[in-house]
C-alpha cells in the first residue's frame, strides 16, 4: 500500500472495514505527517494527539465488535476542525489573541455529530481572525502557507483546513463560509470544498461573525469524500433556531446522467481582472460538462458587482454586534488599569487585530444614527436585488458554473496594507452567501506556476444534492483532484 495519508477518505474507510489498517495507524500516520511538515505549512494551531489517539482506539474497538457496513463512513477517520468551531475542552481561539486560552465547555453541533459517528479530531486549524479574511494573514498566530508553493497564501479564512487537506495531514476538515471562506481556500489549495445552504447545518458552537451569512462547510480531497460528512452534519438542531427543519436528501453518487442538466454561465463572472488561465480552465471544464450532455446557457446576474459593497457593510455590521461580547470579563485575557470602563477599551484595543478592528468600526459606522439608512439599510435592499438575480436565473437553469476567485493563490503580503483590494478578490464567492444558496468548489486545472484553479457550482437553496451529483460525475471523468503537492 502507498503512504496511508495518500488514501482518500473513502479509500481509508474501505481499508478500515477490510481490516487492512486500524484507525490508530491512520491517526498516527496523520500525526507523524503533521510533525514532519506542519512546521513549514502551519495549518494547525493546536494538535490534539491524546484526544485523537483515544478516539482512534475507541473506533478500533467498534470495528472489532460490529460489521463495518453498519458503521458510519467517518468512523475512525482523522479530520481537522477550523478554529472557529468549538470542541469541548480544546483551545478554541478564532485565530485571535482575545480568545487566547479559551477552552469551550461544549462542542459545536457539527463537531458533535461527527464525533458521535466516530470521527477522530486531530486538532484545530488556522483561520483569519474571527474568519475575517481571504488569506490567513489576519490570524494572530501567523499565516498558513500554501502546500503548492510555500510563498503563497492558502486562501482564507479556512486556509488552515484547506492546507491541511491538500498536504495530506488529514482526510477531511470542517470549515466555515461567510463570504467564500471554504470555497476560495479550497480553490487555492486544489481541494474540494462545500459551502452549505444557509440554515442547513446547525451553527450552535460556531463562534459568530456575520449571523445572516455564516454557514458550516467541509473540505476534502474529492467530492465523494464530502458527501458522508455533509449528510452527518446536516439537519435541524433544536439548539440553533435558524437551522431548517427540511429533510436532508440522500446523496447518491452513481454517475448521474447529465443530459437533463441545465448549467448557467453568468457573463458577469468573466470580467476584466480575471486571470486568463483561470478563465481558460473554467471554460474547459464547462465544455467538459457540455461534452457529457449538459445544456450550457449564458445567463446574467446583473447585480454581481454590487456584492462586494453590500457584503462589506452587512457582514461588518453584524460583526460589530457579535463581537461586542469580547469584554475581558467572561473569557479571554483582560488588559488595562483595572478600572471601568478603561479595561474594555484596552482589552479590545490591544487584543483584536487590525482587520477585526476595521470591520467592527465599519459596522459601527454603518449602523450609527444618521448613517443607518444610507449604508446598512441600502445594503439590505441591494441584497434583495442580488437574491432576486439568483431566483430569476434558477427558473431556467439547475446549476450555475463560474470561477471561485479571479486569480490563483496570491503571494503572502501581496495585498500589503490595502484592505479594499483584498475585499475585491471575494467578488465571485460573496453572492452565494448574500443569497443563502449552496456552493461547491472543485479543482479544474493548474496555472503556468503550477497553482491549482478552482471552479464553483452554485445551486438553489437546499439543493446540495445537485451540486454533489454533477461535480462527482466530473471528477469521475477527470483527474485534477488526484494531483497533490510534493511536500
Amino acid at each position, binding site marked *: 500500500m502507498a503512504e496511508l495519508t495518500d488514501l482518500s477518505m473513502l479509500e481509508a474507510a474501505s481499508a478500515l472495514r477490510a481490516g487492512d489498517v486500524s484507525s490508530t495507524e491512520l491517526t498516527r500516520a496523520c500525526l507523524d505527517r503533521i510533525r514532519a511538515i506542519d512546521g513549514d505549512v502551519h495549518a494547525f494551531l493546536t494538535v490534539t494527539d491524546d484526544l485523537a489517539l483515544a478516539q482512534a482506539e475507541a473506533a478500533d474497538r467498534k470495528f472489532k465488535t460490529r460489521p463495518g457496513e453498519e458503521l458510519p463512513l467517518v468512523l475512525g477517520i482523522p479530520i481537522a476542525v477550523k478554529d472557529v468551531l468549538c470542541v469541548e475542552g480544546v483551545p478554541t481561539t478564532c485565530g485571535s489573541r482575545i480568545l487566547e486560552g479559551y477552552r469551550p465547555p461544549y462542542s459545536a453541533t457539527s463537531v458533535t455529530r461527527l464525533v458521535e459517528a466516530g470521527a477522530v479530531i486531530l486538532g484545530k486549524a488556522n483561520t483569519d481572525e474571527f474568519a475575517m479574511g481571504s488569506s490567513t494573514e489576519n490570524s494572530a498566530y501567523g499565516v498558513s502557507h500554501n502546500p503548492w508553493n510555500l510563498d503563497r497564501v492558502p486562501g482564507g479564512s479556512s486556509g488552515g483546513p484547506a492546507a491541511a487537506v491538500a498536504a495530506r495531514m488529514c482526510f477531511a476538515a470542517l470549515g466555515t463560509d461567510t463570504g467564500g471562506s471554504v470555497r476560495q481556500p479550497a480553490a487555492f489549495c486544489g481541494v474540494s470544498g462545500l459551502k452549505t445552504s444557509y440554515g442547513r447545518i446547525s451553527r450552535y458552537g460556531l463562534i459568530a461573525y456575520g449571523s445572516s451569512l455564516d454557514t458550516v462547510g467541509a473540505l476534502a480531497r474529492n467530492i465523494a469524500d464530502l458527501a458522508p460528512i455533509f449528510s452527518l452534519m446536516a439537519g435541524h438542531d433544536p439548539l440553533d433556531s435558524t437551522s431548517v427543519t427540511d429533510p436532508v436528501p440522500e446523496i447518491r453518487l452513481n454517475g448521474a446522467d447529465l443530459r437533463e442538466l441545465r448549467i448557467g454561465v453568468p457573463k458577469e463572472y468573466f470580467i476584466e481582472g480575471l486571470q486568463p488561465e483561470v478563465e481558460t480552465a473554467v471554460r474547459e471544464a464547462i465544455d467538459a460538462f457540455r461534452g457529457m450532455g449538459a445544456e450550457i446557457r449564458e445567463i446574467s446576474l446583473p447585480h454581481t458587482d454590487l456584492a462586494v459593497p453590500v457584503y462589506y457593510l452587512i457582514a461588518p455590521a453584524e460583526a460589530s454586534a457579535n463581537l461586542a461580547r469580547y469584554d475581558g470579563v467572561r473569557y479571554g485575557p483582560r488588559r488595562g488599569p483595572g478600572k471601568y470602563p478603561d479595561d474594555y477599551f484596552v482589552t479590545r484595543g490591544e487584543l483584536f487585530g487590525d482587520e477585526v478592528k*476595521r470591520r467592527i468600526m465599519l459596522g459601527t459606522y454603518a449602523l450609527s444614527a444618521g448613517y443607518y439608512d444610507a449604508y446598512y439599510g441600502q445594503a439590505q435592499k441591494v441584497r434583495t436585488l442580488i437574491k432576486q438575480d439568483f431566483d430569476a436565473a434558477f427558473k431556467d437553469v439547475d446549476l450555475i458554473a463560474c470561477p471561485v476567485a479571479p486569480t490563483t493563490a496570491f503571494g503572502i503580503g501581496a495585498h500589503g496594507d490595502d484592505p479594499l483590494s483584498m475585499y475585491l478578490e471575494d467578488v465571485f464567492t460573496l453572492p452565494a452567501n448574500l443569497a443563502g444558496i449552496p456552493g461547491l468548489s472543485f479543482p479544474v486545472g493548474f496555472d503556468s506556476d503550477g497553482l491549482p484553479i478552482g471552479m464553483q457550482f452554485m445551486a438553489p437553496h437546499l439543493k446540495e444534492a445537485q451540486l454533489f451529483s454533477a461535480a462527482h460525475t466530473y471528477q469521475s471523468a477527470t483527474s485534477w483532484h488526484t494531483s497533490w503537492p510534493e511536500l
Partner: protein
Amino acid sequence: MALTHEEVRAIAHLARLQLTDEEVERFAGQLSDVLDYAARLNEVDTSEISPTASVLPMNAPLRPDEVRPCPPRDQLLANAPDPAGGMFRVPRVLELEP
C-alpha cells in the same frame, strides 16, 4: 468621503476600542476607501425594494419552557480572567457616595 481623525475616534469610542494615533491615521484612510467604494450602492434605485435581513422566513420558534441541565458554574467560570467567589469579578462600575 474622507473620515476625519475625530470621526474615527468617535466610532472607536462607540465600539469600545482604544486606538493608537498611528492606528487612527491608518484606519481613517482605509475605512474611507471602503466607504467611498460602498457609495456606489446609492446609485441603485431601491425605492420599491424591501430589505433582506435574512434569507430564511423570520420566525421566532417556541419550545416548551422546561428545566434543563446547564454546565456547572465552575466550568463556566474556568475561562474567566478574574473569577472570585463563584462570580466574575469586574472593576467597580458605580462610585459610592462618601
